[in-house]
C-alpha cells in the first residue's frame, strides 16, 4: 500500500513539475516537487525507501528533462537516503525541522546536480547560490505546507465524517 502511495506521489509530483517547468529562478526551477516528495517518503519510511524513491524519481525526472540520465537520480538517491537517516536519528515532525531538512536536502541536491553538470560540461550555472537559496526556500515552504496538509487531511476528513454521523 505504501509502495503504491509512494509511486502515485512521485508520478503526481512529476506531472506537476512539468507544469511548473516555466517557473524558474536564474535558470533553476523555483520548486522541485519531486525532491519534496522524495524527502517526504524518506521521512515517513526510512532511508532505504527514501533511497529507492529517490532513485526511481530521479531517473524518471532525468529521462524527462535532463540531457544525461543518472545525474538527478544520483542526487535524489543520496538526498532520499540521508533524509531517511536524519529522520531516523532525529525527531523531524515539526514544521521547522522539516523546513530545515528541506533546505539542506535542496542544497545537497543542488550541489550534486550542479557539480555533475559542470563537471561533465553539460551546463553552466553562472550564479548558482541565489538560485539554490531560492529553490531551497521554495521547497521548504511548499514542502512544509504540503506535509502538513497531507498529514492533516486524513484526520480532517475523518472528523467531518464523524461530525455528520453524530448530527444524524
Amino acid at each position: 500500500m505504501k509502495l503504491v502511495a509512494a509511486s502515485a506521489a512521485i508520478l503526481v509530483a512529476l506531472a506537476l513539475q512539468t507544469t511548473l517547468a516555466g517557473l524558474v529562478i536564474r535558470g533553476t526551477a523555483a520548486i522541485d516537487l519531486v525532491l519534496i516528495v522524495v524527502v517526504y517518503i524518506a521521512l515517513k519510511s526510512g532511508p532505504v525507501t527514501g533511497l529507492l524513491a529517490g532513485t526511481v524519481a530521479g531517473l524518471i525526472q532525468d529521462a524527462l528533462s535532463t540531457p544525461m540520465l543518472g545525474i538527478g537520480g544520483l542526487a535524489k538517491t543520496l538526498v532520499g537516503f540521508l533524509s531517511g537517516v536524519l529522520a531516523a536519528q532525529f525527531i523531524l515532525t515539526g514544521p521547522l525541522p522539516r523546513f530545515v531538512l528541506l533546505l539542506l536536502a535542496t542544497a545537497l541536491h543542488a550541489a550534486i546536480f550542479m557539480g555533475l553538470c559542470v563537471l561533465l560540461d553539460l551546463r553552466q550555472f553562472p550564479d548558482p547560490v541565489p538560485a539554490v537559496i531560492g529553490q531551497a526556500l521554495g521547497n521548504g515552504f511548499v514542502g512544509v505546507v504540503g506535509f502538513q496538509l497531507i498529514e492533516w487531511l486524513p484526520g480532517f476528513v475523518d472528523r467531518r465524517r464523524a461530525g455528520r454521523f453524530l448530527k444524524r
Partner: protein
Amino acid sequence: MALADIRQRPGVLLGAAILMHVVLISAQVNTASGLPVLQVITFGSFAEVQRGTMAMVDGVRNLWSGYVALKDAHRENDALKHELQTLQVRLQEERAEAQRTDNLRQLLELRERAHLDTTAAEVIAAAASPEFRTVTIDKGTSEGLKTDMAVISPAGVVGRVILPSGRAAKVQLLIDRNAAAGGLIERTRVQGVVEGVGDGSLRMDYVPATADVKPGDLVVTSGIDGIYPKGFVIGTIEQVDRGSGGYHLITVRPAVDFTRLEEVLVVRTPPASREGPEGKP
C-alpha cells in the same frame, strides 16, 4: 527474504545505487579522446585485472621454472656437463692434431730447405734415467738409420743416433753430459766445441779468450765433427766468462726446447767430414 536482508543493510544498498548511477552516467559521457568513459574505465579496469592475472601467471610460471622444474634442470645440467667434457676432450684432440700438423709442416720445410736425405721420426719415449738425456724415436735401421746420424728439428740441432734397432732408435740429445758438437759463432765465425752440461744448458769450449764473443751471438754447427751438417742452429750465447787456459767460458742456451720434442728429422746424408776439434762425439 533477500529483500528484507538488503533492507537491513542500507549502506550496501546505497553503495549499489551510487555505483549504478556512476556507471549509468559514465556510459553516456565521452572522454577528451572521444571514447565513452564507461568503455575507458571498463577497459582500464579489465586491463588492470589482466595485468594482475598475467603477473600471477608469470609468478607461477617463474616459480615452476625456477624451483619446481629444477629437477629437469639438474638432469639437463648433468647432460650438458657431460657433453661439455666430451667437447673439451675433442677440442684438445683437435688442438693436438693441429699442433702435430704444424710441427710436420715445419719439418717438411726444414727438409726442403736443408737439401738433405732425411727421414721424419716421432719421439715415442724419453730417457728412463734423468742422468742420460736421450729419447727414443720410432724409426730404426729398417728406415736406414745408423749410429751417429744427426737428428735435427726445425728449431735446431737435437742430437745424434746412438743406438738404432729395427724399428726404433735411441737418440742422444745435445744437452746430454756426454754429447758434443762442433760449433761456430755465426757473427765472428770463431769455432769451438759445444758440449752438454746435463742441466739442460750447453757449454762452448775452446774459444780463445781473445775472440770476439758476446751474449746473444748465435752458435751454429760447424760441420767439422763429421756428424752434424754445417750451419744448423745450436743455440744462443747466454753468458761469457773468462775461463782458464786462455779460453772463454761460454754458456749457450739451446735453440731446441727438449721438453717439447715430438717430431724430428734424422739426417741420412753421409757427413762430409768426421773430424772435430776434439773428436769427442
